[in-house]
Every structure is written in C-alpha cells, then in structure tokens.
C-alpha cells in the first residue's frame, strides 16, 4: 500500500452480501490471496462503500433482504461505470443473472461457488477493467 506499483498490482474488491458470515470468511480468504477487500453487509452499505472509494471489481449477491441485487447493480453502473460486477445467484435463478448481464454485469456465478472459480472470474474482470481504464 506504500507505493503506487503495489497499489496498482493489488486488485481492489468490494464484496456485497447480506450473509455476513459468508462475506467475512470470503474476505479473509481473498485478502490472504492478495486482494484488497472491502465488505458490505447490505445493498445500501454496498452503495455507500462504492461512493466513498473506487473499486476494480465488485462481487454482488443478487438476493438480499433490503435492496434487490439488480437494483444495486444499476446504481453501481451509474456511479462507477468502470467497476466490473460479478454477480452471485442461487441455483435456478440464472434468469436474474442473465438480466444483470444486460445491465452491464461482467458475469455470474451460482452460489455456493468454488473459491478458485471466483478468483478466476475476478482476475478476468480486473483484466478487462485495466484495459478499459487505460
């Protein structure tokens, strides 16, 4: 975090999910894998976090108590069009995820997903993010 090079090498992640236990453990594991992770435990908290800071990639649960994931996605895309969004959906709710892709989401994964799959997706998304940023 000390120099620019390190900052640019670490991917800034925003995790948004109202299942706190899941977000916490995911954050721990991703941090250990050298991601800079910020967590938000509701749709509103996610939006507030995105307003304060810029992120490379957001991982967004589509099924949350307060705000529907798709609505959060729309806000994200308006606020920070450069931030790529990876959606998490329940199995059988792929329709919502496909809808999300139409609104500009990068891709989706069905929950529960393998950590390795998520990391692959995050790397793909940040690669795209870097390209579009340049």
């Amino acid at each position, binding site marked *: 975090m000390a120099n620019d090079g390190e900052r640019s090498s670490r991917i800034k992640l925003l995790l948004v999910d109202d*299942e706190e236990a*899941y977000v916490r*453990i995911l954050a721990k*594991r991703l941090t250990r894998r050298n991601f800079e992770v910020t967590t938000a435990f509701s749709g509103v908290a996610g939006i507030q976090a995105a307003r304060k800071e810029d992120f490379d990639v957001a991982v967004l649960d589509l099924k949350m108590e307060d705000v529907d994931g798709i609505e959060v996605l729309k806000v994200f895309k308006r606020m920070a069009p450069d931030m790529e969004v990876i959606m998490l959906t*329940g*199995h*059988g709710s792929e*329709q919502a995820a496909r809808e999300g892709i139409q609104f500009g989401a990068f891709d989706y994964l*069905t*929950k529960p997903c393998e950590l390795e799959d998520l990391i692959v997706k995050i790397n793909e998304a940040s690669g795209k993010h870097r390209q579009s940023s340049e």
Partner: protein
Amino acid sequence: MNDDQNQHYYKSLTRRIIVTMVVVSVIPLLLISGTIRYFFQVSYQEKVQDHLKVLIKKHRQNIDTFLSEKLANIKELGESYTFEELSNEAVLAERLKVLQEVYGRSFVDLGVVDEQGIQIAYAGPFKLRLADYSKAAWFNAALHNETYISDVFPGKRGIPHFIVTVLNEHAGKKWILRATVDFDSFNSLVENLRMGETGFAFILNRKGELQTKPRTEIVASTEPYASFLASNDALGEDVLLTDMPSKSGQDVIYVLSRLKNGDWILAFQQTAEDAYSALYTARRIALIIFALGVLCIVAVAVVLTRRVVARIMSADREKQMLNERVIEAGKLASLGELAAGIAHEINNPVAVMVEEAGWIQDLLEEEDLKESKNLEEFKQSLKQIRLQGVRCKEITHKLLSFARKTDPRPRDVQLNELVDEVVNLCQQRARYATVKINTELDPQLPPVHASPTEMQQVIMNLINNSLDAIDGRGGVVEVKTSTQDDYVVLEVGDNGPGIPEAYLPRIFDPFFTTKPVGKGTGLGLSICYGIITKMGGKISVSSAIEVGTTFHIRIPING
C-alpha cells in the same frame, strides 16, 4: 353415512322424476282420450238411435202399406162384383186364385158373410161354409166399419190369423166380404226386422196381445210397453225410444211406434251392448291402447330416469374425484415451492461452511502448524467437510432444478445434457427399484428450441413412469436420442408390464391414472403432452402387455 345419504338422494330424485314424467304425460292423455271417448259415445249412440228410429218408421210404413194394400184388394173386389156373383162359390174361388196369383200366398181364403153373421159363401182350404160368426168379435166391429182389420186370433181353424173385411150393401141388407191374411207372410214382415244378435221386432195390440211371434217371450205388462199402451198421445209419426234395464240387469233399448191408427204397436228391442257393440269394441280397444300407452310411458320414464340419474351420479362422482385430484395437485405444487425455498436457504450456510473449511486449509499452510503431528488428520477432515459441502450444494441444485418457479422460457438446449442430468438425478431411485437406466445418446444431436426446465420435467416424468411401471421387479429403462429428418427424437422405453390397450387412448388425458389414489395425480403425462405439443412436437406411445412400453417424442429442430 355420506354414501347412504347420497343413495337416498338419488333414489328420491329418481322417484320424483318418474312421478313427474308419468303425471305430465298421463294427464293430457287422460283428458284427450276422455273427451274423445265422451263425444264419440254420444254421437255414436245418437247415430244408432236415429238409425233404429228410421228403421222402425220404415217398417211401420211397410206394415201399414201391407195392411192397406190387402184392404184395398178386398175393397176393389167388393166393388167390382155384385153380391150375387160373389155368393157363387165358383166365382169366389176364381177370384181367390187370381189374388193368390198376383199377391202370393198372403190371402188364405175369401168369404161372404150376411147380416146375421152366417158365411154364405166361402173359398179356401177350410170347410167354413155357413159358419156362424155372429158371436165373433170381429163381426161386430166389421158390421160397424166400412173396412176393418182384425187382431190376430186363432178363430175356428185354431191357427193364428187375422182378417180384413169390407162392408157392402145389397138390397137394403148389409153383407161383408172378408179375407183371411196368411199369418206367416205378415209375420215375416216383422220377423225380418232383426238387428245384431239380440235385436228383434214384434207387434202388440191394444190389449197387449202379441200379433206376431217374437223371438223371445214378451211380457206386455212390463215397462215401457204398459205405459205406451196406456197412453193415447203418441199417435201418428211419433216413435218412442227409451233405454232401461231389463230384469236380467242388462240395458235394453226399446223402440215403440203405433200401427193401424193406434190399434197396434210395433215394438223393437235390443240390448244396449248389442246395439252399441261397435262402440263397446272401440271403447275396449281404446282402453287397451290407453293402458299400453300408460305402460309405455311408465316404462320409458323409469328407464330414462334411471339412465339420467346414473349419468348425474357418475358426473357427480367425477366432479368429486376431480376436486380431490386438484387439491392433491395443489398440495404437490406447494410442496415443490417449499422444497425450493428450503434449498435456497440452505445454500448460504453451506457456502459459509465450505469457505470456513477453506480458510482453515489456508491457515494450515502456515509454517508453524506444519510441525503438528495431526496435520494429515486435519487435512483429511477439512477435505471431507468441503466434499460434503459440495454434496449439499449438489442436492440443493437438483432440488432447485425441479422446483416450480423456474424459467419456462425457451432457448436452444442440448437434449443430451438434460437427459444426463435427469438420469443422474434418477439413479438413486433406480437403484432402489433395481432398475438399470441405459442411455444411448446421439453425439451429433442438434440443439432444440425449448424450455430446459420443461424438457427436464418431460424426461423426468417419463423416466419416473417407467420406474413406477417396473415397480421393484427389476428391469431396464432405455433412454435414446437420435435425429430423424427435421426432428430430434427422444425415446424412453421400459420392459415393464405394458399398458392395457383399453387405457392407451386415455393415457394423455388429464387426471387419468391407474395408480392408487394418492400415488399419482394423473397429470404427469398430460403435462408432457401439453409441453411437447406447445413446442410443435409430437408425443406417442407404443406398448405391449408383458413386453414393455416406449414413449416417442419428436421435436422439430428449427421449431
């Protein structure tokens, strides 16, 4: 209890319908036939009575004509010949012969009687010359009337006869020309008047003595003769027709008319039953027809009502069964939703669990823990936790795949993948049923445009049906995909007991099931049928008893 109530309800319904139908049909029939019967009877009786009256009048005329003719013959004879000529028996005999030649045997004899009642000349078969008639009733009457016709009497010869007389004068003295009229020829006039079995005619004189031989004995003192004889009113053309019961209780029709200026009565009688026999026959036939009609109405009402009520019963029963099945189907649907909800909720804790295990695995990588002697045990345990977590995930995925609120929108789907998924899902059940599921999938199969969830449901229903059909006896289920012309063909076959031919036309009907109540909704195949036909495909079945059943589905490739 409920069944008893239903039985009672249907019985009373049957009774009510039958009674209504019979009453509604019989009452008009009764009114119409009663009216027709009454008017027909009245007019027919009038016709018969008129006919009898006319007949009697005609015969009265005939008899009157007969009598006056005889009288005229004698009168003419008396005027044409002198007393001297007629007193000559040879002349008299010759005249008799001529009369007999002209008028047949109706004239029996001729005689000339003087003022003292002595028959001075006679021609005829009897020896009555110089017979003394001064004491005879007719002689007195004849002496005071220009012409006279006597009543029938046996007279001197002892045979019933009557005489006609003409009064003449010769040289200041009266003489009488008399002729005997043959009784038989007169009697035949009346005797010919016969009707039916019991109708006959006869003649009575004023004293009620019979002037002809009636067929049965007549008691002239009984009604209505007595009153008719006693009265003097009905002279001339009048004919009296009355109808009263006889001694034997039968209704008898009497027709009475006066003859010979009221001296005689021409009577006719016939039993009503005989006179109106045609009417009574018609009445009997009508009664039989009416009875048969009522019988028919009752029979039709009973048969028709039973059929209608049976229909109503089966319709009611079907409705009840349908209700039960709809409730059952509804239950099943909500069960599916519940399962989907549970699967969704379980997903998050499982995900947390798996990630926590991953975190421990991450931490184990740190060097200071590597020294632990149980490190391998830790790793094994964590691997198991992750593995079981993955299994949970798979279970919830499968549950969700078949839950209701899934995406029914069609897209390009690879049928082979769906078949694999469903077969995997069914393997567990198949193992319990000792059924082997074989797949023979065409690797070149083009994708079809369909809703994956719906297609899954179709494949699932067909495989489940096959498993149900084999029902634990062990067997094989074959699932094949292939391409034929412009169609993708999916076949699901089993070597189960087969479907009876009688059921084949109905197996795609909603709510048709051969499974016991509560086991099948009867909706599976009809849902399959609906899904396949909606996407322009065809579903058919071929089945043979004890050989097996195969369902064929053809889906257009560019549908």
